[in-house]
Each structure stands twice: as structure tokens, then as C-alpha cells.
């Protein structure tokens, strides 16, 4: 890796392990097929096409690769959910709807290394028996869509796509589909509905598990951009060798996207679990801005639960249990889950002591109220209600009881919706109240109790309490 030169000012940190981002910001690199092939590109595809498709799935299972989109579900296991006696066509969908606030990893793959994704996708299609695949690109990535179209055309030209790929007898086609600007299209069943030309209303599960009843009611595998890129490297290294990267059960590398109040925000590819939160924030990202100290971190995209930097966590059970400070937490799926949050999509949002938590929460609530698809009741009504309360909190017209109402609204949504958006919009609220209750209460005033916040409300109050009007 030492022979690779990176653009000045964008060199990887020494603690990074560049696998997926190997070519990102590389000197002399462009997204063309020529450049990619000169670097040994598509050799893994050539190799994979000689393998038994089931062996590829087994390699992916052996690698322990967990989905990089947010839920961290084992990719190989997901592929194994296609019904064994299936006679319908199988589809593969690449979820490039990277819309989780704080996450900006996939766009660099799409912009700078599209052929890595295409190679990973064709290998994955071969493994799951899909002859047709889609890349669902969010509307906000117009350039990525153009680059992908160009790359797909190049690949088609070179017989890396289309009929009888590289003489193997395997046919595979990939299409780019552009979204229209909705966060919910990143939810896999919402994405499928959108791809079918409908409103992206997530489907109920059961019965509509995509691996059995997905796109056009056929078995469908939906994987994140980064996950599909990893497949190529798993074929190159072998599943077992790949699984030595990172830590057991949390294998491989992953790209963390650090934003907010650090000296050097950006994307960093690290071995999963090999870095602690402290190492990432202080060492890799250069620590807090001068004169500031870290206050809170959202570790896995905006829907992950916020964590206090001075907190410590009890990780593990029984004899293995140990107490770790926030900065000692290793950045992997299981530890962050045990600490009450999640690794999610890898978007680390850092807030220092200059930040008002009420403003942060209101910002998140605004996003989720705006993006709720409106299909099911709790999320549709609850997300906006929470936003209205935090609007008042920020404006200084909230009462202490509003914080309790806010908390109870979040719990009325959490776990009761069709898709995970319910958790996405309620977890930030639950966690914020759990961790920063006093700060939120300090921005409320008892004198706001019972005052009217709307004309209707005022009319009702006068009607019910005429003596006080």
C-alpha cells in the first residue's frame, strides 16, 4: 500500500486501514475503467465466476461481514434467506440512498471508485443468482448517478456486464435508479416500493421480507454500497483471511464519517473495533477545537442514541463485565450496542460544550418530522408533535411538563411502527432526555405551564376557565 500516493492534505491517518477507500483521493486516480483495470480491477470478478456461487456465499459468511448500512446484519446470512426452492427471478439492489444525517461514505465510493462497486455487485449477483440488479441513488447525488452510468457503460463495453460475462455464461445487468429526495427510500422495503414506481411506503414484515417477497414480489437482496464493495475484497482475501481484520464478530474495516466539533472532521477507514472512541476523536480527528471540550457524541448516524462523553458504561455480562469510560469504548457493533447506542451507519457526530442540546434535539426532530413518510400513525403524528414541542423549547416557551410529554411521545412511537423509522425518530429524543434532562429542563419555565400556544388553544382555555380570561 506504500506505493500509493494520496493527494496532499488528504493522506490517510496512520491508524487507518484503507481497503474500500484505497483509491479515494489517490494521486493519478480517476473513476474510469482503464484506471481501475490497470490497478488489477475486475480480477476478483474473473476469479469469482469460476467459483461455485454457493462457495461465494460461504466465503461471505465466513468473513463475518456485517451490513454497513446501519443495522449491522450479517451479509452472508441475509443472502441465505432466499428460499431454497425459489423459481422466481432474484434481484439484487444496491442501496445508495445514503441519507442518514452524519453519513458521507458511500458518495466517495460512487464518485471516485464506481467500478469497485460494480465488481462487488456482479460478484454478489453471481452468488445469489441475480441476473438483474439496481443501484438506487439518492436524488441529492446527481453527479454520482452520471459517474455510475458512465462506469456501467464502460463495463458493458468490456463485457464485464451484460450477456455471457467474460465468457462465463453468466448474464447480469445493472441499472441506476434515482430517488426523488426522501429519506425513507433508504429503508429497504420503502426503496423497493419506490423502485416499483409507488410511494415509498415501507412494507410490513412479516410477510414482506425482501429475501422472499421483495421487488415485484420476487426474492430480493438489498445491500449497502460499502457492504457490496467488501464482497470483492472477501473474494480477494478469502473469507477467513478477511475475518482476521477487525475483531471477532466485528470483522473487516469500516468507514467512519466524523462531523461536528473536532479539529479534523472527515472520513476514516478503520478496522472495526481496533480503535477506541478516544483514539478516533483525539488521535485521528485531532481532538476538540481549541478551548473547547467534548460534550456528546452521536456514534452511528443521527438516529443512533446520543452518548455523554463523561459517561462510563458497563460492557459484558457476568465475570467478563467491565466498566469502560466513553473514550475507552472500542468502535464496533456489539460494544456500542451494549453501551446503549449503535454503530449504525458509521456517522459520528461530535458536539462540544458550545452546543445547546435543545437546539440539537430540535434539529434532529425537524429532520425526522420532515422525512416521516406518513404511512403509519405513531410516526406520522408523533414525529411532528415532538418537533412542535422542541420548537417551543428552543423558543423558550416550553414548560417542564413538556419534557415528560416529549419523552412519553417517543415511547409511544418506539417499537410500534411499520419500519425502523419509528426508532430512528424516537431514539434521539429518548436518549437526549435520558442523558441531558437537566439541561433541557433548565430551558423551560414553570410560567409556561398551561399557557396557550395557539389561537384554538386560547379559545379552548377561555371556554374552560372563563374566570381567568
Amino acid at each position, binding site marked *: 500500500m506504500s506505493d500509493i500516493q494520496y493527494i496532499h492534505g488528504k493522506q490517510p491517518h496512520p491508524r487507518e486501514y484503507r481497503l474500500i477507500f484505497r483509491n479515494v483521493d489517490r494521486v493519478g486516480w480517476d473513476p474510469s475503467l482503464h484506471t481501475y483495470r490497470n490497478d488489477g480491477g475486475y480480477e476478483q470478478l474473473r476469479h469469482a465466476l469460476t467459483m461455485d456461487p454457493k462457495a461465494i456465499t460461504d466465503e461471505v459468511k465466513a468473513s463475518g461481514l456485517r451490513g454497513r448500512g446501519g443495522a449491522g446484519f450479517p451479509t452472508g446470512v441475509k443472502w441465505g434467506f432466499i428460499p431454497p426452492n425459489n423459481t422466481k427471478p432474484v434481484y439484487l439492489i444496491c442501496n445508495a440512498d445514503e441519507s442518514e444525517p452524519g453519513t458521507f461514505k458511500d458518495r466517495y465510493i460512487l464518485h471516485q471508485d464506481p467500478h469497485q462497486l460494480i465488481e462487488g455487485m456482479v460478484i454478489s449477483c453471481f452468488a445469489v443468482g441475480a441476473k438483474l440488479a439496481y443501484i438506487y441513488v439518492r436524488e441529492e447525488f446527481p453527479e454520482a448517478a452520471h459517474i455510475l452510468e458512465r462506469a456501467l457503460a464502460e463495463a458493458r463495453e468490456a463485457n464485464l456486464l451484460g450477456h455471457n460475462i467474460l465468457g462465463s455464461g453468466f448474464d447480469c445487468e445493472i441499472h441506476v435508479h434515482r430517488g426523488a429526495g*426522501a429519506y425513507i427510500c433508504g429503508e429497504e422495503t420503502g426503496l423497493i416500493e419506490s423502485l416499483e414506481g409507488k*410511494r415509498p*411506503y415501507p412494507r*410490513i414484515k*412479516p*410477510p414482506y421480507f425482501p429475501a422472499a417477497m421483495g421487488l415485484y414480489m420476487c426474492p430480493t437482496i438489498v445491500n449497502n454500497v460499502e457492504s457490496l464493495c467488501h464482497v470483492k475484497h472477501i473474494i480477494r482475501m478469502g473469507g477467513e483471511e478477511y475475518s482476521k481484520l477487525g475483531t471477532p464478530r466485528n470483522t473487516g474495516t469500516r468507514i467512519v464519517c466524523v462531523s461536528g466539533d473536532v479539529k479534523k472532521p472527515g472520513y476514516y477507514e478503520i478496522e472495526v473495533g481496533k480503535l477506541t472512541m478516544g483514539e478516533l476523536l483525539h488521535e485521528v480527528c485531532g481532538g476538540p477545537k481549541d478551548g473547547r471540550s467534548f460534550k456528546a457524541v452521536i456514534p452511528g448516524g443521527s438516529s443512533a442514541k446520543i452518548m455523554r462523553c463523561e459517561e462510563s458504561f458497563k460492557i459484558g455480562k457476568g465475570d467478563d463485565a467491565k466498566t469502560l469510560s466513553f473514550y475507552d469504548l472500542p468502535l464496533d457493533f456489539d460494544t456500542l450496542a451494549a453501551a446503549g447506542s449503535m454503530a449504525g451507519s458509521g456517522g459520528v457526530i461530535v458536539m462540544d460544550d458550545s452546543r445547546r442540546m435543545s437546539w440539537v434535539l430540535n434539529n434532529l426532530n425537524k429532520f425526522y*418530522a*420532515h*422525512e*416521516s*413518510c*406518513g*404511512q*403509519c*400513525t*405513531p410516526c*406520522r*403524528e*408523533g*414525529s*411532528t*408533535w415532538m418537533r*412542535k*414541542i422542541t420548537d*417551543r423549547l428552543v423558543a423558550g416557551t416550553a414548560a417542564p411538563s413538556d419534557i415528560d*410529554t416529549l419523552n412519553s411521545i417517543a*415511547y*409511544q*412511537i418506539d*417499537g*410500534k*411502527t*411499520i419500519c425502523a423509522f419509528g426508532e430512528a425518530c424516537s431514539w434521539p429524543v429518548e436518549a437526549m432526555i435520558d442523558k441531558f434532562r437537566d439541561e433541557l429542563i433548565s430551558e423551560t419555565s414553570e410560567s409556561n405551564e398551561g399557557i*396557550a*400556544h*395557539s389561537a*384554538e*388553544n386560547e379559545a379552548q382555555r377561555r371556554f374552560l376557565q372563563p374566570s381567568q380570561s
Partner: protein
Amino acid sequence: MSESTTEKLPKDLAAENGMVNVQIDGNWIQVPKGTRMIEACKMAEKEVPHYCYHPKLSSPGNCRMCLVQMGMPPRPAPGEAPSYGENGYQEIGWMPRPVIACANTVAENMGIRTTGELVETCRHGVMEFLLINHPLDCPICDQAGECSLQEFSVEHGRGNSRFVDNKVKKPKNVDIGARIRLDDERCIMCSRCIRFMDEVADDPVLGFTDRGTHTTVTVHPGHLLDNNYSLNTADICPVGALTANDFRFQMRVWFLKETKSIDTNCATGANTVLWTRGNEIFRVTPRENNEVNSCWMPDNHRLNFHYVNSEARLNTPMIRNKAGVHEPSTWAAAVQKAAEHLRIRQSGEIAIIGSGKQTNEELFLLGKLAETLGTDLLTLVPRFGESDGKLISADRNANTTGATLLWDTEDPYAKLDAIREGVRSKRIKTLVVFYENILETAGFKEADLAHLDLLVSNHILPNGTAKCSHVVLPGASFAEKRGSLVNITGRLQRINKAIEPPAGAMDDWEIIRDLIAALDKKAPPLYLIEDVLKAIANEVPAFEDQNFSKIGDLGVQITLTGETIPLLEAEYHRIERGEIVG
């Protein structure tokens, strides 16, 4: 244990019959494999409140009102056999997260809790969410009294509101079609109407626009909700978002009396409810009958009742005097006048025209009248159009099948041409007409009717035929009488009396009975309509052993005509494919 190995476990006993055991609120019941949890709860007589779920439509699971707690036996460790308790069931491990009862199916040894803290918390939450942006305009809302939002509010609501912010404003009083009005603020986005128009009416004009809390039901650009099945959307709307223009602001539903009846506008015989107050019909809605009309009904049929309330209804028998003017008379005089003429005529000079909309009892007695008069010139007036491929039959007469059976003929319309020709050629001198304005429906000419020595006709509204008649006998509408009809598939169904006929009018079967009695003193006495059906049951094989109680609310199949109802066929296919419960 040695005993239990020889005994069959409950799961094996159930599986033999294609059933599974489900524990619902502590009680074990057997339900068919593949049953939805919500239907299993219904079988156990446990109500699971719901808005979006409708057995005839697909289940999107979007209202979240039917959340229940579910449990399954824990999966045994590899190599370990599942353990069964003394009652033969495995222990249930309850899930911490609720599940929707509408779209999930039962499994062996499943547990369902429709009460308890988790379930109640969910329902409280959903009710609160549904109401925060609802206008709460119940006092002026037509749905009040039959609104699921009101009903479940009472049982699962909070009683007070914690919502102090501005409500979302949405379009109100939206004109989306000729017969339906939309209030988007009342809408709870259950999508029943959207799914109905798409899946049942095959006219997907409704959809959502905007998103999140601003989600709004509307018609697609350039389209209107003007399908002939549009009013069904108002029936299935659980709230007051979609209301029928015809019924809007006419009457509070709690003042209305419900009478079960049958649609007499075509041979399908859709089951209906007549909603009346005093002596007035306010609306007609479909009633579920899975052998006839599922839950639906065409708009033009349900709206075809206003004539019953008409001011112009004939309300006294009339006899035309020598000057050609109709004078009010009495029933005794009118029947006597008709009988006098009928008695002196030769059989070939008399003809009887009945209506395919009449009940079995009336048609049977018309047959008896023809027998008494010794004429075989007895016919109905055909009314054929095109089937709409759903619920409207090509035969717009409600009781053609009944006439076929009662008169033992293949074609109850066969004699019409001969009668028309007989009247024209003056061979027929006396004509008895029931329920038909033959000038309009049977091709008779006013000049031809003028040849007749006697024209006796029965109507409920004044018309050309009545005007030409020597004796006019005011009758009762479908809502004002009892009786039975046989629909196109051969199903015997009954209509019930919802309101009284106008003061001087008479139930039609009684008019025919009185005519027969005036002509034949030895005719067996018939006091009640039950006596007529009893006579039918004795004489007509297909009706053997039938009586009104037996017919019941849903009817009985007395013959198979081989005809099918297209909408039901489509529904069976959807049930087979597992898309709907049915």
C-alpha cells in the same frame, strides 16, 4: 410421561383437522391454519380495535391500532426435545414488542394477549396520535354515532388532551366527485378508500399526496371519484372524512331505524340495510353477504329510493268515471268494479302483466289469479341491460328466477308480445297490470290501451298507464312490504317492511288476494303473507319447507341457476391467493 407418549398432544389433534391451537387471553382455542390473528381473536370473542384492516381489502398494517402482544414457545436448543406441560401445551415466551394482529397469521402454540399493560399502552398512544390533529368537530360531523374514532376513544382514549400546539390544517369540504365529499382534516390515513377503489372498483383514482403529518388523501390529477361504486368508500371510511352527498346533514344516524332488506334494482339482489326515521327512508347501505354482494353495492342502486318518499305517491284507489276523470274510491268499490268486469269476460279476452320486481308471494298469487280467470296470458316485462362486470346483473328485474320457478316456465316474458298484439287487435278486452308502466317499459301505445273495456293497474306513483286505467290500485314500495325474491344465482332472500305505505295504499299481495277472493268465493283464505309462502312451499318443489324464518337475513340457496356474480368470483380468487381474508 409413559402415558402421554401414547396420548396425542393437542397440536397433533389440531393438525389432523388443519387447525392450530392458539391461546387468546389465557384460553386455548383451535382455529384454522393460516387464520389472521385478528380473526382468531374474533373467533375467541375478543375485540381487537382496528381502523385500516378490512377483511375484503389488502392489509397495509398502517393504523397500528390492532397491536397485540404475541408469544411463542422458546425454540429448543439443538438436540433438545420441546417440553410440554401437563395440559399438553408448550410454555409461551412473550415478546416484548407488540405485533399487528391484522396481517400476522397464527401458528401452533401461539399466545395472543388482547389486554394487559403493553397492549393498552399501545392503544392509548395510537388513539392520542390520531386525535391530536383531528378537528374534533363531532357535533357537525355526519359520521358521529357510527365513527370508530369516537367508539375507540371511549374505550382506549385518554379523556384529556396533552396537545397544546397548532393543529395541521388540511383541505375541507373537497369536491372529489359527484356523490362523495372529502374532509381531509378528519382523515386518519387508513387508506381503506384508496385500496377499495384500486382493488375492488378497479378504478384507482384515489391516492395520498404530501408526506408525514401533511399526508393528504385526494384524487389523482384529472380524475374524479365518480365510479358507480364510489359510495362504498363512505361506508368503509372509519371516520367522517368521506361522506355521501346524498345523506350529508340529513339526519343524525342514532335516530335512524335499521331494517334489513334486499336491493330490487337487479337480479343480483344485493343485501341492504334501509335506514329510516318515521315514515321516511334516509339512506340505503349494503349489508355483508358473501354469497351475494360481499360488502358492496352500486351507487345508482342505493340511491334509487327517493321516489318512495315522494309527495306524489298514490294514496287512494281510484275509478275513472264516464267523463274520463279519476275519482277517489274505496278498496271495496275498486276491487268490486274490477271483479265485475273480469267475471263477464271470456278467458281469451283477459291478460295479466306482472313485474319482475315483484315478490314471490305476489307472483304466485298473480298465477292464481290467472288460473281463476282461466287465462294463460300471463307475463312479466323484461328489463335487460348490460352487466357491469361486478354487481349489476344484466337482468334488471329482481325476481326473474322466482317467476321461472313459480310459474314453472322457462321464459316468464314469453307472452308479452302476444298480449301487446292482442290489445292492439282488440282481441284482448281486459288487462290487469301490476307495478309496470307498460307505456314506457313494455312498448304499449296509449291509443291501444284506449280500446280496452277495462284496464286495472297497480302503481305507487302516477304515470301514463295509471292515467289510461279504469281502476287504479295504489300499492306498496319495496320498503313498505315483506316478501321473498330469488336472485340470479337461485338464492331465496327476503325483504322486510321498513316503513308504512301511504295511508290509502295497500300491500300488493293483499290486493291480488282480494281480487281473487272477489272472483272465487271458494278460494282458500290467506290472512298473512306467511300463508302465501306456505302455499308456495306446498305447491312449488323448489320452495319445499321454506318459510321466512328459514330464509333468515342471509337467504338460502334453493336452486342453482349456473349464473355467477362477477365481483364475487374476483373476490374468491383474491382469497385463494391470500391477498384478503374475505
